[in-house]
């Protein structure tokens, strides 16, 4: 099976700041966690994978194709979806319309214009598809509400729905549980697990919520100061002295 994501020797610097140095990462599980202290470069790695940042060195392969240097739109069209640390939704559109935007991106501008002015049937199909996804995450009830009126937790889940509606093969979730209460996390995790079981998709999750990572991810990579310092099951990584040191400082390493 081709690895859905393979990053080799990635280096990224901003000014004098070396954010990523010679990073290697291969994904071959359904749920991979990407953890590490703040400032480690996790979001930057996502930015490289999704085409927001071009690495100064290294290459990225997604689903077997070399995507190094490709633009965001091209990479998205390959079947990559992502969410952001703060949800990027359109406040004055309804929840279902926000999810439909995921599908809108797959239609060309010209097709959209004719859809707008001539036929309505494709719009109906899109809407049905969006509702289906929302139902899986128990959000169908608020489908017609203005997205801006929802609490943060629900907004983040809507953003996940938007990313999933196109059935991507690779899903990048950037701190999906940040700011969410226990209930919201459940509302996110269980449907996500079901989805992944039913579709051919690999999920990479940046998270600080280690319980969530423990719960969901079979495979974890620990990022610190621009490189992967540990790789393995959650248990393996979290007992790795290097990891403990990275998170808590040198004095704590001895105690674990």
């Amino acid at each position, binding site marked *: 099976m081709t690895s859905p994501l393979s990053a080799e020797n990635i280096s990224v610097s*901003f000014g004098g700041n070396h954010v990523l140095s010679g990073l290697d990462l291969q994904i071959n599980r359904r749920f991979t966690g990407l953890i590490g202290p703040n400032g480690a470069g996790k979001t930057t790695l996502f930015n490289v994978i999704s085409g*927001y940042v071009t690495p100064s060195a290294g290459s990225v392969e997604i689903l077997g194709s070399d995507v190094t240097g490709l633009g965001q*739109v091209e990479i998205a069209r390959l079947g990559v979806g992502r969410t952001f640390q703060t949800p990027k939704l*359109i*406040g004055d559109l309804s929840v279902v319309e926000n999810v439909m*935007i995921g599908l809108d991106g797959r239609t060309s*501008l010209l097709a*959209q214009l004719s859809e*707008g002015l001539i036929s309505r049937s494709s719009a109906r199909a899109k809407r049905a598809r969006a509702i289906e996804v929302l139902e899986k995450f128990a959000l169908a009830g608020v489908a017609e509400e203005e997205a801006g009126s929802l609490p943060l937790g629900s*907004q983040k889940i809507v953003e996940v729905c938007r990313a999933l509606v196109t059935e991507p093969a690779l899903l990048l979730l950037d701190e999906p549980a940040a700011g969410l209460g226990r209930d919201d996390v459940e509302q996110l995790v269980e449907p996500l697990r079901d989805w992944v079981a039913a579709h051919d998709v690999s999920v990479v999750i940046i998270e600080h919520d280690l319980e969530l990572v423990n719960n969901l991810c079979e495979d974890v990579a620990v990022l610190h100061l621009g490189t992967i310092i540990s790789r393995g099951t959650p248990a393996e990584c979290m007992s790795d002295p290097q990891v403990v040191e990275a998170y808590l400082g040198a004095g704590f390493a001895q105690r674990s």
Partner: protein
Amino acid sequence: MARESLGLRRTALSVVVPVLALLAVVLPDLVNPYRLFLATLIVIFAVAGTGLVVIMGWTGQIALAHVSFLGIGVYVTNWLFSDVGVPWPIALVLAAFLASFIGILIGFPAARLRGFYLAIATLAFAELISRLFVEVDVVTGGIAGKSIETVRLFGMSSARSHWYMALIVAVLVFAGVHRLGGTAFGRCLRTVRDAEVATGSLGISSTNYKLFAFALSAFIAAIAGGLFGQLLSYASPDNFHTALLIQFLVVVFVGGVTRLSGTVVGAIFVIVSRELLQDVGDWQRWVFGISLVLAVRFLPGGLTSIGGRLRSRRSSSGEAITSFGEGVPA
């Protein structure tokens, strides 16, 4: 929106709309030609306003060359009709296509840049176009200007013709733009406005949408220009200065820049103000300046969504923005 209020809205509309339509058709018989002229001006300003709603309200781009495109509509429509002999409706559409083509040309370098770069670029462009209006005197009559040949419908008086022409154009423009706004195209524009960072990951090319919205707004401005020229009857470069831009900005902002229907309210406000302040001419500018300041200051929710800060009432407040370099802890 709750189901009940939607039903109420529908009933209200089904009564109000036919009444307004009837009123519109018989208006020339109800008011004197000058009042009809003012009403036509209101319609034209509202049409011009829709162009700004598309580029500013829906796409969130600060495009300030609107008056230039209006001017292109005035001059080119007239030149094609009067000097070249093209039938007026075709001349209007051709002028509009020229305007949108030029819109894409200036939009191109600016689309890749940050928000207010476009504001500067379009202001600079407006300056250049003003100069161009003076230079290309074949079309524009140079500094002295040019008279606009009047178009009449079925031998009606010019005031009546202009009213009906404006009405027909307005209905087409409003209907078309409204339709577009409620579909994928409209959603993508709003995504460019509120979540530009996310557009790439969704497969949406924000540059393409910005350019198209810009071209569309230029097109609409030129269409309004063709009609405007008919009302002016004589056009000179003086007509197309920043004072007019301010008036258009007031038209859209007083109405809530994201709403199409707001342009009608805004247009009424501007034209009525112009009339009332005619004798104290210098005060006009000041009033419009204050109106713009107040409208931007107190706009109910309209501007908050433009620029991507999602208003989440129950979220944790004050989330710091994380830069790409992750140098700042989130």
